[in-house]
């Protein structure tokens, strides 16, 4: 049995080495690249991201990321967004009143969390819904978060395919979306590649599903 191929999309964002290594450990053959065709054809695509929404989205546009994600999803090919790589999958991001368009795969705006201490930095628990595949067997585990912005409301129109998404929540000051599983498109606000054994298990589940 050959291992699934995974591309970690290199759009100029932070530490990609950890994602590469963690996915390899989860059983994937991993390439870190900005090459559109490689990213389109891989069994799985990981969209990483740290820092500001606008900067991440600018990097994404440079590598035709929004189009890439759209084409993969149209063909049912799995995509996993991580941290700001998850945030840019939503409609928009609001940073200090400046609104930036995202990829628009999911409805909603990424906003600053209302919490006493930000960034939300460290290991937190999550509440996953019945039927979640990514969190199967991970009840009560903690995952590593580092972010100040998040999706605070999940209100897809009932008729849309996004209505069937499985949404996992976490809380820091207020509830926010910690992960979404929606057909071929999944994402986590936390860093599974930095979340020790629990994160490794989640990545293994995703890689195995490819």
């Amino acid at each position, binding site marked *: 049995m050959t291992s699934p191929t995974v591309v970690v999309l290199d759009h100029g964002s*932070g*530490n990609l*080495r*950890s994602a590469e*290594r*963690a996915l390899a*450990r989860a059983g994937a053959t991993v390439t870190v690249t900005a090459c559109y065709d490689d990213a389109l054809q891989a069994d799985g695509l990981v969209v990483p991201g*740290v*820092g*500001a929404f606008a*900067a991440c989205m600018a990097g994404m546009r440079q590598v035709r990321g929004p189009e890439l994600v759209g084409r993969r999803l149209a063909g049912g090919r799995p995509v996993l967004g991580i941290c*700001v790589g998850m945030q840019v999958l939503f409609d928009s991001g609001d940073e200090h009143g400046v609104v930036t368009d995202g990829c628009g795969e999911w409805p909603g705006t990424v906003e600053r969390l209302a919490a*006493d*201490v*930000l*960034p*939300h*930095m*460290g*290991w*937190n*628990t999550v509440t996953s819904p019945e039927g979640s595949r990514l969190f199967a067997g991970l009840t*009560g585990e*903690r995952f*590593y*978060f*580092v*972010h*100040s912005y998040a999706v605070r409301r999940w209100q897809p129109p009932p008729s849309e395919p996004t209505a069937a998404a499985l949404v996992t929540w976490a*809380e*820091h000051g207020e509830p926010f979306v910690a992960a979404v599983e929606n057909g071929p498109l999944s994402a986590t606000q936390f*860093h599974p*590649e*930095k*979340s*020790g054994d629990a*994160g*490794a298990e989640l990545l293994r589940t995703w890689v195995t599903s490819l």
Partner: protein
Amino acid sequence: MTSTGLAVRVIPFLDVDAGRVVKGVNFTGLRDAGDPVEMATVYDAEGADELTFLGVSASAQGRETTYDVVRRTAEQVFIPLTVGGGVRTVEDVDRLLRCGADKVGINTGAIERPDVVTDIATRFGSQVLVLSVDARRAVDQPSGFEVTTHGGRRAAGLDAVAWAAEGARRGAGEILLNSMDADGTGAGFDLELVAAVRAAVDVPIVASGGAGTVEDFAPAVAAGADAVLAASVFHFGRLRIGDVKDALRTAGVTVR
């Protein structure tokens, strides 16, 4: 039952020089406590929530060695890794992130040129930048604490609390607050220092310096620390990460 919510982080700190871990009492009289990659792996297995490396070497060759240690650690350890030591430019940060660091600590580089804090945060985001503040008591500063450099040997002429606040305002996403008075004494954290900085910043604070027993950690959290850091007590096996977490849990603190 598992408690929910954000856990207080317990972070071992490793001084790395020429590829080896060193740590001395009050930063002098260095003793060798081992291979950093091996120690990182052990700490990960023991439940460390994060690791912090300080590459103390100033030479170009020494820095290459630090990069190599970061690379090898990031290949084996899947918890967050903060690396500091000699960081002065945006390029230094880029280099460390590419080696596999998740966060980068800046200290003297920020004092010499505060704009670099803004530049780094703008380029990579606040979450990658830890402002490391070596503070000690000083009656001539408004808060009663001053910033030091050169391992506590020189005064920087800055109020430590005001400097932490300025760093956070410029975009540092975390304050690593090291008490130079308490460091190496094992007499407990400087709780007044932690409380003073807590009142001045709304970014996470890592309390450092002074841990001697498992009972020392909970008071630092009560004073406002979001994470607690120690070096020698872990390196020489006097305290285990698990025992520190048990003591925190007993004191009602949420830990992983």
